[in-house]
């Protein structure tokens, strides 16, 4: 079975480490915050200028001046700091964020990512995505393995305009956990019940399949 959005978030959360500063993109990445192991602390960075993002406020504590990069009203945790957009991206561009999780339209075997622009459709902009992929060393892309029409999103070469070049090493799809090494996707884990054959079929870019591909486990 393909992973649910919640399961995808759970699997990504397994990559967290105690003391990580993490930037979570909109969508599935946001859900990762719900699965931080209880014996672990991570601090969420929001690129509009907040380190130490907390949960949503109550109706009583909602504050128009306290939002995250998704423009949602939020709160801060103890020990948070708030700063300008230049300082925020100094952190990001300077490689100080330990893990960035974001969605994409396509990823290719050379670690290229396309996530912001579909030609001939309205282009709203890249926001902070280009800075995030250029600045982070440790990025996890979360997306469905294939489009609704069955077209692979793991390609030999991205067809869409890029968000970043050669910067992606880890991809979690609804079918598999893959790492990008030497111009190929390496199949590391498969979703419970998903066959290697299905993954091969739905991966257009070069795929390396080890002898043993374990199923993902969820605590």
């Amino acid at each position, binding site marked *: 079975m393909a992973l649910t959005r919640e399961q995808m978030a759970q699997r990504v959360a397994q990559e967290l480490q105690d003391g990580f500063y993490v930037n979570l993109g909109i969508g599935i990445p946001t859900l990762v915050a719900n699965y931080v192991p209880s014996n672990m602390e991570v601090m969420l960075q929001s690129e509009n200028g907040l380190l130490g993002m907390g949960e949503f406020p109550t109706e009583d504590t909602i504050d128009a001046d306290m939002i995250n990069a998704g423009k949602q*009203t939020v709160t801060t945790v103890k020990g948070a700091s708030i700063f300008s957009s230049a300082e925020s991206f100094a952190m990001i561009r300077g490689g100080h964020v330990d893990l960035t999780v974001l969605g994409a339209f396509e990823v290719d075997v050379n670690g290229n990512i396309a996530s912001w622009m579909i030609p001939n459709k309205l*282009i709203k902009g890249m926001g902070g995505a280009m800075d995030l992929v250029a600045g982070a060393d440790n990025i996890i892309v979360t997306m469905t393995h294939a489009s609704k029409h069955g077209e692979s999103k793991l390609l030999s070469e991205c067809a869409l305009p890029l968000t970043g070049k050669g910067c992606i090493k880890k991809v979690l799809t609804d079918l598999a956990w893959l790492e990008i090494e030497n111009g190929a996707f390496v199949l590391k884990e498969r979703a419970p019940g998903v066959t290697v054959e299905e993954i091969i079929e739905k991966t257009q870019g070069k795929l390396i399949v080890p002898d043993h591909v374990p199923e993902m486990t969820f605590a």
Partner: protein
Amino acid sequence: MAGFDKVVGSYEEAMAGLEDGMTVLAGGFGLCGIPENLINEIKRKGTTGLTFVSNNCGVDGFGLGVLLEDKQICKMVSSYVGENALFEKQLLSGELEVELTPQGTLAEKMRAGGAGIPAFYTATGVGTPVAEGKETKLFNGREYLLEEAITGDFAIVKGWKADRYGNVVYRHTAQNFNPLAATAGKITVVEVEEIVEVGELDPAHIHTPGIYVDRVIVGHFEKRIEKRTVKEA
């Protein structure tokens, strides 16, 4: 102390000197920390042909969105736009030009503009449409883009508290692009919720020193919320 008293008494005075065709830097992220009354004054003035440098362009009927109604904006330099129908319409009809700039690059371009740095290198955008026509250079084997600074004829800024000398502090994440825009305007106008006595702000915790600020005005703010999210009780 007339020399450092930057408080003006009317929004008309606050935006005096703004002319058709000028470039305006605006603080704010989404609808958070936007200089809403200064924007409304620009609408009232009817200045046209304006280029705005702002992370976003407001929504229909609020923020920079109101300046689309009478087609006052000819160009936006932003990282993310199109949260309103009018924007999309004017973009598709060619009445409005957009220069999409990565958010971190946009922030750094404004900082550079204020700091006398004409250009800087960044890895952001290498290999993407953002890199088209830009110089690249290798540092330690990695490719970087040369990005140029941005300055404006005016900067419009939303602060929380200011003193008469133009020292400003921002509230929570309403800080965002505001202190950067403040440094890079030939004329920097700051509207705030409260004017405090000179000496009341802690010198070590002033976000925007008065040297960057030309005019200060106190206003009332709607502070519209774009995405109201609350937790289950």
